[in-house]
């Protein structure tokens, strides 16, 4: 079956563009971090772009996602502008979270991005809560909870699936199985080979998906999202992928051979998608190069925006601990 029978050319190209924007953004983040420009530490999404791009293409702007420590790709795919994300990574006042959150806490509630989260699997119950709230408000919004193969062993994964399944909430649980949790292969920590079987314990559909094929990620997400929206309850999608970079930028990667990484290069989701689009006659060399050039320009503009933005004033450090009022816990102190 040709691609255009299942996906419009416009959508196929838009997913490509999103993947390229994420790749270029993350590659620049890697450079900037190595050059000492960014405080803290960063986890990049390189190699997993087909998941955020495909899944978020199946969502509406007012649908929700919760994300992870590896969240820049989700933020971009859900529609956040690159400038505020980059400024957040720099710790600038113009950042998406005014520099209070940084790489692991990028969020934009106006596009339904309920936050990257530094606590592994921490977003899954929050996604279930957002879905409960949508049901209660009668909005039909769907919530996607992204997490990793490491997160699937957290109690909160099991608790969230059980709760969402019991109430048939509109949640899609998307496991990005990139084979590693920090330095440890999932084979050393997880008894089941196919992570999607975990769904059966909660009586919900579980599907294993080629996470490096945007057509697969998009279509499986579309089906799960439709089910979620129609009141059919949650789905567990186990998206098989591979993390090309280290766990964080600067990771010495002593736990895997570089040959293992190289052997996976053929499955680079962007390379594969460009080949598909070319074979299908949807993309020529010129337009393809233009997408990369535009992404590079957009990322450069984001870096310029971040670099020229001011840092937050120290005097504002106690703002927003509470709503409106000051952070000082006691009245009357001299």
């Amino acid at each position: 079956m040709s691609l255009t029978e299942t996906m419009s050319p416009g959508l196929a190209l838009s997913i490509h563009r999103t993947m390229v924007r994420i790749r270029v953004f993350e590659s620049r983040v890697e450079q900037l971090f190595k050059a000492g420009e960014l405080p803290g530490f960063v986890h990049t999404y390189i190699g997993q772009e087909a998941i955020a791009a495909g899944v978020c293409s199946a969502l509406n702007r007012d649908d929700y996602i919760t994300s992870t420590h590896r969240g820049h790709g989700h933020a971009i795919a859900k529609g956040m502008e690159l400038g505020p994300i980059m400024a957040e990574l720099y710790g600038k006042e113009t950042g998406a979270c005014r520099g209070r959150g940084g790489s692991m806490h990028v969020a934009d509630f106006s596009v339904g991005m309920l936050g990257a989260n530094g606590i592994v699997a921490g977003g899954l119950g929050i996604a279930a809560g957002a879905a409960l709230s949508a049901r209660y408000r009668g909005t039909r919004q769907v919530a996607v909870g992204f997490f990793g193969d490491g997160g699937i062993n957290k109690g909160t994964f099991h608790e969230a699936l059980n709760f969402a399944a019991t109430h048939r909430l509109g949640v899609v649980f998307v496991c990005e199985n990139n084979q590693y949790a920090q330095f440890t292969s999932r084979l050393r920590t997880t008894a089941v080979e196919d992570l999607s079987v975990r769904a059966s314990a909660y009586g919900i559909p579980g599907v294993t998906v080629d996470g490096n094929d945007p057509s697969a990620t998009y279509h499986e997400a579309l089906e799960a999202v439709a089910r979620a929206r129609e009141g059919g309850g949650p789905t567990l999608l186990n998206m098989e992928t591979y993390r090309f970079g280290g766990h964080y930028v600067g990771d010495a990667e002593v736990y895997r051979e570089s040959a293992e990484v190289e052997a996976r290069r053929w499955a680079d989701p962007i390379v594969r998608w460009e080949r598909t689009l070319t074979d299908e006659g949807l993309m020529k060399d010129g337009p393809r190069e233009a997408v990369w050039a535009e992404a590079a320009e957009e990322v450069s503009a984001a870096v310029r925006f971040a670099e020229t933005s001011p840092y937050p004033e120290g005097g504002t450090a106690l703002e927003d601990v509470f709503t409106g009022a000051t952070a000082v816990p006691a009245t009357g102190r001299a």
Partner: protein
Amino acid sequence: MRRMSFGQATVDATRFAMREDDRVVVLGEDISWGGNFGQFRGLVDEFGHDRVIDMPISEAIIMAVGVGAAVTGLRPVASMSFVEFTLGAMDEIVNQAAKFRYMFGGQVSVPLVLRASDGVLRSSAGQHSSSLEGLFTHLPGLKVVAPSNPADAKGLLRAAIADDDPVVYLENKRITAKRGPVPVGDHVVPLGSAAVRRRGTDLTIVTYSVMALHAEKACSELTGMGIEAELIDLRSLVPLDLDTVLSSVARTGRVVVAHEAWEFGGFGAELVAAITVEVFDRLRAAPVRVGAAQAPIPFSPPLEGAVVPGADEIVAAAREVMGLI
């Protein structure tokens, strides 16, 4: 005024809030059956299972669902039953609920109330007797209240549900069934306002929750000894009405700080530190703290009595600051 129990007063407050604002939902284990102490009794009959949501025994998910719902337009009240059970949700309380607003640059508020029953009641032993307010008051981003009587129970719960930030609402098990007069109509006690229960000139007793009742008894005994204590019931620990405390201590020059929680590293230490720093030159004696001894709460009644303080310990502390022992 109508006489009702502390627990019934919280039902009353919740009913008011739920009638007024359909974004208010309550969730917790066994909640449609009234909860462990009847603090939700009858709500399901009026508001149905969509708003009175029975949760699995998944404490982390109760809190996480509360956070997710709160940041997307609802005002959840999450019942955690015994306060010890919040420990299974500490990640969600500490890392999510308390930090969401700040970490995300003020984009959202988290209007969430966490209700939990604390304190000692009839040999409930180690895992069902703790007072953990010190864990919560330590954390920026959480408000903490601990009412001592039915009227405040109603008024503070109304204020907590109306508040835009996460509020930990602690209800001591020993006073949940205690009855008292409660305003019949709507009744709100603002967060951060202490109540002066009794005027006195010799010393100030600063306390909250069940210990405020023990302190009333202690005050009567002290009167019999010719000592007039001023009694402050804080009601709200964060925000804290330090004004009321300081102006009283500045007058009396002597202070006893009392809570049922462990004394070592407890909230009383913060109070004594604040008092000492702010009105040091007005103190006529070193402040004295009353709190539980540093052991898990034991089962056997004589042991429980040995660890957990009551009116006698407050009287002894008062005599100590008065220089009588």
